[in-house]
């Protein structure tokens, strides 16, 4: 076609990015890569390799090593060996390494972008303008934390050897999100990139070598799921950080339950994209382009559920279709491609299967008449309308360029539909009315809410989800904490295993003569004293085996009732922090007035001295959390955009708390008060040997104006109640502070809804020592950070 003909046609024509340099780099490595272990390339021990290919052509790019358990073991050993020297470095020295990584990522930015696009299939515009700049930004930002570590995180120490497993959708970016905070905090790393996209991780390994990072600090082991499994199960790994599917996240939670491995999970999503009638509709449509048609929709936080206000649904659908018709699908290396290739055949098939299923369930499928490449794994941008919440395409993560559209009538219904999901990663709200936008944002169950924008990311703002979208954050100060532990906690000794009590009381004769105290203690549910469903009681004895009373024997139905009551008391979260503080202060006041009476009763179980000390410390502890209630503030971040990113500390929700044996009153107070102070509602299981404390506690709550249901108490056998509580799908977190076996049980039983787990790992906590038993460490676990991005400008 001549220039004259092109003048008439006015088409874009090809604009390919030259892959020459990236190909030369692959050739330089003979297109064959081993693992990067202890600062050097290593052949896989079993000699097995697999191919990685360009999904837009199907052509093989390189052969990479298949990691075996032996390879993982070698990498873990290298990381362990490197740890002492790495930690002995000054914070400044580590900061310099991170700074150097940032610089070198920038120096090789185009090669990395091209390599990423070839391996993954994403458009070069995205890898060049979004992924790689964010990678560099992440290392710069964390170079800063490395420098500031001792000032900003006093008393904390690194987890140690960290295993990291990342997905194929943002290969190098996810690597940066994992490696940067780990190194900044003094950990050493074994990272396993995704099977489909190992190349940029290997290029990064070379950068580590280039900058002279000490051998063993970063190790890259390639392979498939079995390699990841070997890493997860390796006994000498202190923390696992995983980004990927919720199914695999659940398996990792199970696999690590027996260990002390710290765990952070960034999992799937089915994020709502809410458009109100007063939104700038054309801009909202562009938001969708940046949302569901970014990276072919293979984005965990993709706005895949469109919720439109009914009044604008028709006009909006028309605008979306018009916009879809101007999307360009094509070679990922073309600079004017919007829609690249799907990462692999298996993913393409999965998208098609889900879309077919959605249509079978009544959805209307619309795809624009745009040119699609004839080879490679491509899926056209797709709009499914007539979708209802019951449809599989409204519930399951598709991980493809498929938008499922629904309508709503009122803001309240928008929130209800938005939160009607097992996930809670991200959400978008489009409205020109700041009242509507912020009101809805505050109610959404999501770790990130973008107001009038989509998919903005920055290292300074934590990213991570609520519910089954995982736990832990990446980015921000909260992300740094994921790689740290309190120094005292790391070295705390283990508790002796708790004596297991008889599994079920026969309800036989009670030696009534031995009891001097005639007192009826009940369960406390929804602000009322309740008889146990079982109709049985539990004998409570002092240290000499003398019967000192009976406690109700709670069972699974009592837990069920308690959770329902806690859920109904959600108003507690909405009450003002000042109001919560007042109620906590009042509790301290009332406890103070009844100190002698309570200490006397408690003394029968733990001795007079401890009882008096527990009461004294409890009053002080309640005061502390009353003080904290209106001071555990969020933050306003400064990402490099014209916007404010509001990091709000929100309560986790409904928290199940299994209290320590050894300090029946103080242990209960030390765990329940931080949860309560920030607005959680609680189902507490008190000390197993002395559950009678419940009677004193609920009198305290009743007289202190605590709303019914904010705290519920169920006494009984821990082994039974812990399981029911940890498995309950309407409980958002389980805290368990007993022996090791209990911690393992809490973790194992939590996988159903992937509730957050907070345990003492079976270690001793000195509940009388405020350094250990009070403050931010607990408040951080009682909250989750929601980042609300609000761009501004007129």
């Amino acid at each position, binding site marked *: *076609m*001549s*220039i*004259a003909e*092109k*003048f008439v*046609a*006015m*088409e*874009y*024509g*090809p*604009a390919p990015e030259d892959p020459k340099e990236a190909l030369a780099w692959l050739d330089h490595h003979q297109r064959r890569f081993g693992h990067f272990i202890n600062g050097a390339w290593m052949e896989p021990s079993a000699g097995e390799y697999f191919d990685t290919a360009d999904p837009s052509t199907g052509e093989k790019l390189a052969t990479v090593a298949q990691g075996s358990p032996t390879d993982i073991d070698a990498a873990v050993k290298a990381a362990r060996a490197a740890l002492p020297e790495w930690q002995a470095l000054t914070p400044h020295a580590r900061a310099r390494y991170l700074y150097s990584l940032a610089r070198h990522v920038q120096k090789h930015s185009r090669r990395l972008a091209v390599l990423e696009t070839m391996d993954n299939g994403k458009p070069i*515009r995205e890898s060049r*303008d979004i992924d790689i700049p964010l990678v560099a930004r992440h290392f710069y930002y964390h170079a800063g934390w490395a420098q500031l570590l001792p000032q900003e995180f006093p008393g904390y120490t690194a987890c140690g050897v960290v295993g990291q497993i990342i997905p194929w959708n943002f290969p190098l970016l996810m690597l940066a999100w994992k490696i940067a905070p780990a190194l900044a905090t003094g950990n050493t790393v074994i990272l396993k990139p995704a099977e489909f996209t190992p190349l940029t991780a290997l290029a990064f390994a070379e950068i580590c070598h280039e900058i002279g990072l000490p051998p063993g600090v970063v190790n890259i082991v390639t392979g498939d799921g079995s390699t990841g499994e070997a890493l997860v199960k390796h006994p000498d790994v202190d923390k696992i950080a995983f980004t990927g599917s919720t199914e695999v996240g659940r398996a990792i939670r199970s696999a690590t339950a027996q260990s002390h491995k710290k765990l952070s999970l960034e999992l799937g999503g089915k994020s709502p994209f809410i458009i109100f009638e*007063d*939104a*700038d*509709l*054309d*801009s*909202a449509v*562009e*938001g969708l382009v*940046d949302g569901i048609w970014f990276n072919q929709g293979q984005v965990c936080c993709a706005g895949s559920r469109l919720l439109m206000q009914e009044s*604008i649904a*028709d*006009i909006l*659908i*028309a605008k979306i279709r*018009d916009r879809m*018709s*101007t999307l360009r699908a094509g070679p990922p290396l073309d*600079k*004017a491609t*919007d829609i690249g290739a799907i990462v692999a055949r298996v993913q393409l098939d999965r998208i098609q299967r889900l879309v077919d299923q959605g249509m079978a369930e009544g959805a209307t499928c619309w795809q624009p008449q745009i040119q699609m490449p004839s080879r490679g794994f491509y899926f056209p941008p797709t709009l499914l309308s007539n979708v209802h919440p019951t449809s599989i395409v409204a519930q399951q993560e598709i991980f493809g360029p498929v938008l499922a559209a629904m309508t709503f009538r009122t803001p309240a219904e928008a929130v209800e539909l938005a939160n009607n999901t097992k996930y809670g990663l991200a959400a978008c709200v489009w409205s*020109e009315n700041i009242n509507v936008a912020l009101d809805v944002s505050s109610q959404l169950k999501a770790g990130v809410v973008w107001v*009038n*924008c989509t998919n903005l990311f920055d290292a300074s703002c934590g990213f991570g989800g609520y519910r089954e979208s995982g736990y832990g954050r990446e980015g921000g100060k909260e992300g740094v904490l994921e790689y740290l532990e309190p120094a005292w906690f790391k070295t705390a000794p283990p508790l002796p295993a708790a004596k297991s009590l008889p599994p079920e009381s026969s309800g036989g004769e009670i030696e009534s003569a031995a009891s001097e105290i005639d007192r009826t203690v009940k369960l406390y549910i929804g602000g009322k004293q309740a008889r146990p469903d079982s109709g049985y009681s539990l004998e409570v004895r002092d240290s000499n085996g003398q019967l000192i009373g009976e406690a109700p024997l709670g069972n699974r139905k009592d837990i069920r009732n308690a959770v329902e009551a806690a859920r109904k008391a959600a108003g507690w979260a909405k009450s003002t922090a000042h109001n919560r503080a007042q109620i906590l202060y009042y509790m301290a006041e009332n406890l103070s007035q009844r100190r002698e009476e309570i200490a006397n009763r408690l003394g029968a179980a733990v001795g007079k001295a401890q009882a008096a000390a527990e009461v004294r410390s409890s009053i002080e502890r309640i005061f502390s959390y009353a003080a904290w209630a209106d001071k555990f503030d969020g933050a306003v971040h400064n990402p490099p955009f*014209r*916007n404010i990113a509001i990091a709000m500390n929100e309560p986790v929700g409904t928290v199940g708390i299994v209290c320590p044996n050894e300090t029946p009153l103080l242990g209960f107070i030390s765990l329940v008060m931080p949860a309560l102070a920030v607005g959680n509602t609680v189902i507490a299981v008190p000390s197993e040997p002395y559950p009678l404390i419940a009677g004193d506690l609920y009198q305290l709550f009743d007289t202190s104006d605590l709303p019914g249901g904010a705290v519920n108490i169920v006494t009984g056998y821990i082994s039974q109640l812990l399981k029911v509580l940890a498995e309950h799908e309407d409980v958002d977190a389980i805290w368990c502070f007993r022996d090791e076996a209990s911690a393992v049980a809490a973790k194992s039983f939590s996988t159903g809804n992937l509730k957050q787990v907070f345990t003492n790992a079976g270690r001793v906590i000195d509940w009388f020592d405020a350094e250990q038993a009070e403050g931010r460490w607990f408040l951080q676990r009682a909250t989750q950070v929601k980042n609300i991005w609000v*761009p*501004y*400008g*007129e």
Partner: protein
Amino acid sequence: MEMQRNRRYGPVNTDIPADDQLQDSQNPHALLAGRPLLSNRGIPLNLDWVRQARVNTSAVERRAQSHVARRTVKKDWQAAWLLRAISCMDLTTLSGDDTDERVRRLCAKARQPIQHDLVQQLGIIDLKIQVAAVCVYHRFVETARRAVEGSSVRVAAVSTGFPAGLSPLPERVAEIRRSVEAGADEIDVVITRAHVFGGRWQELYDEIAAFKQASAPAHMKVILGTGDLLTLRNVARASLVAMMAGADFIKTSTGKETTNATLPVGFVMTRAIREYAQETGMAVGFKPAGGIRTAKQSLDWLALMKEELGDSWMKADMFRFGASGLLNDIERQLEHHVTGRYSASYRHPIA
């Protein structure tokens, strides 16, 4: 829902005689997503529509930012697009020191914007590339008219007390009539920005409608003064009112404001044009003016038109650049395309 769009703002009375419609449907003014459109005859002022216009500035800026990275044209395609940019150009001189001779020089350049040898090397002799129009003050309309005689170059006159537009309305209307009588094919009028700030949409509408009446049969481009209006919401609302009042084109700026044609403003105005076309079936052209100096910018603007409105808006009928320095940069790029060597501006005849 293919073509039958739900009207958002109630029925729109376009009031077009049936035979006119017939004629126009056989020879549509423009196509929007395959739908034939008529030329704009205006509609009664629809205040609901005007007041409901919403623009999120940050979101529009992000769109503009990503637009320039999402689209690019290379090699021969780039040369073709640059030639298209020339053919959509209103080559402009609007200075206090303009003279007849200066205007003649401009017209000579308009007739022959690219040197012969370049035209030959590009293989585009048959395209007969000329700029769309020359744009001058009323005083030079007759000079320009004579100077472009026999070419396809049209004569545009800025009018209505350009650039402030604050002289009395009868004088402004009379100025339009005089320019039309003097032979102007196109009239670029400026609005009273105060009407926008005051939300006096009816007064703005009446003013533009009066301009329109006086302009016929010449084409009327309505300059919104977007650099003065400042907020993008004002730009959207003023765009809608101008179209309702019968604008053939809406134009960003006078070139005299501190900021002139920016891509965010371009997105807002083209989206307004699209919505107006969808609601009324009538097509309005777009002219960014001021601040467009580089070949790269002209490609970004053409791509914006292609993305937001479609290929009909990549032709001089529906799209113009108001520019003076742009042509020279395009010539340098075209020479580079032919020779592979970077060019210098002095190698190309000036306007």
